[in-house]
């Protein structure tokens, strides 16, 4: 299952790369990709993944790397 999320206040391109790497490592995530230019996060979830739980962790990762950046759920 693929979902696309809008990101807010993502100001730094290599931070986006770090977030992408961090989110891709989360359990339940098959593939994660962040486009800095369109400010979009695309996540392919694994079969039976708990989307809410994954997104909570993903939001925490983003906050840690760029405190202003928010995932719009």
């Amino acid at each position, binding site marked *: 299952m693929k979902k696309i999320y809008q990101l807010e206040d993502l100001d730094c391109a290599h931070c986006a*790369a770090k977030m992408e790497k961090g989110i891709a490592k989360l359990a339940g995530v098959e593939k994660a990709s962040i486009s800095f230019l369109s400010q*979009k996060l695309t996540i392919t979830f694994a079969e039976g993944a708990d989307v809410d739980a994954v997104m909570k962790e993903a939001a925490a990762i983003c906050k840690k790397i760029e405190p202003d950046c928010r995932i719009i759920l």
Partner: protein
Amino acid sequence: MKKLTRKQKKQLVRILITVVLTALALFFISFFKTNRLVTLAIILPVYLFIGYDLLWAALRDIGNGQIFGEKFLMSVATIGALALGEALEAVAVLLFFSIGELFESIATSKARGSLSALASLCPDEATVLQGETLVSLPIDEVEVGSSVLVFAGSRVPLDGIIQKGEALFDFSSLTGESNPVYLKEGDLLPAGVLALDAPVTVKTTHTSENSSTARILSLMEEALENKGKHERFITRFSLYYTPCVVFSALIVAFLFPLFSSQSYLAALPAFIHRALTFLVISCPCALVISVPLAFFGASGAAAKKGIIFKSTAAIEELASVKTAYFDKTGTLTTGQFKIQSINTKHDSAKLLEYAAACEYGSRHPLAAAFADTPFDQGALSAQKEIRGMGVSALYHGNKLLLGKKEFLENKGIPLDMETPSSETVLYLAVNSDYYGSVTLADTPKEEAKSLSSSLRALSVKSVILSGDRNECVIDTQKQLAFDEAHGSLLPEDKVAYVKAGNQKGKTLFAGDGINDAPVLATASVGFAMGGLGSDAAIESADAVLTDDDPAKVAYAISLSRFSLAVVKENIAFALFVKFAVMLLGALGLANLWLAIFADVGVSVLAILNAIRTLHYHNK
């Protein structure tokens, strides 16, 4: 510098104030020849004015365990400079860093703007005909099957079919084609096109989120997620670059003094100063942005010309294409048949008149060839079509038979002339006597005529792969001067040819996408023609040509080569400057001034270079 956001304007004002304050401070310091402590006291407020948010963000980063954040490293570099008595350098680093960030932010918002320009093509509201009354509705509330009124001079809000009226339409926003197109009742109308001279009523076929423009937009956004080789390289690189630079800085600061002629402690400050230059150029941001920005610009430029790329990887692959394969019918040719030659012992004008009478009203593709031939409609009767064979009719009392060779032979009519048997030759018998034959041919598209020479100029081999008869294919090859042509191919034969081409280098295939899906997928880059309507084409292709113009393929190749060159320039240039500055820094030949100039300068140049792709025009 128009259309800055509030945040950008604020930052610009702050930079300008800092420049003035720094100049004043500099004047004061050199005029009064102040000592170190007073200098620091004068500079420190300026430093805090330009850098307070950076220092705050650095503290937060540390709290989050982000020791390789650019903000933290910048803070360390400038605090180090202050401690070493290089107060002015510290301010300069922060000042140029802010200038670089502002520039980056303006460039990216400009690029983003070019994408949303496409989204603003569709009006927000539609005028819907409900019974006798006109109601203005937001487009996302308009249901499929509604009647929508489009006024002259306004854009079509939703995909639909013309229900009433006829008008000229400007498709340039969707396909780049500037010639207006005349459309009438029953024709398909995509959202975003402009009605030029008359109002029409449109019966909607899609909701707003499924409209062609929305699909193009989502394709383009998807393109940014399928990152190409260079972009993946640069993001991976950025993850290792900063730690490596920081580690090198530590070596320069604390190991190099061991080899100094002075004592370790005496040499330490000078080497720490050298190490600070490393920290200043530790941010890979410009590099990381400039690569996707270049491809982003390229897809924007391509979209303006009616080429939609589904991934940036496709742009990269396209740049190194060696062989270009094209489907014939519908791709290189119009798919409309015209009369090529007439073969008869009798009157050829009469033969055409008879053929036109037989084909009158037929939906067969060959019938269109006779649409312009005049005949006496009143004298036509008993017209009957035998599917896959031909037509029989009574015309001026003559019994006419028009069709395949077998059609006449089955009726026991011998052909007294030698003519090649094929799908595109029609045979005519009048009152059970053979009369003659007409050879029809598909006509090449006007735009296709320069294609092979444009491809040759790019050293790309041009090949036609077609399911059509060999003679027809060879004929088209000659007319269009293609390098190679293969006819009578089944879809799997086409796949075999492209697979063989893949052995020699990258390939592209352009076709209509419906029966060509396997070969579109086999080629390194698949171009689907006229993809606006066909979902099958969009699925299997890597790029979509919105207006059926095969010549755009050559444009797409040169655009992709240009973008790739820009990307390579940026990577090479940025890496070269950064390593050169690090080397000079380690040797003590570069100070923070040079380092920050190099860092910001590289960012600005790389971004400017990347943005060039947005304005790329084919000469």
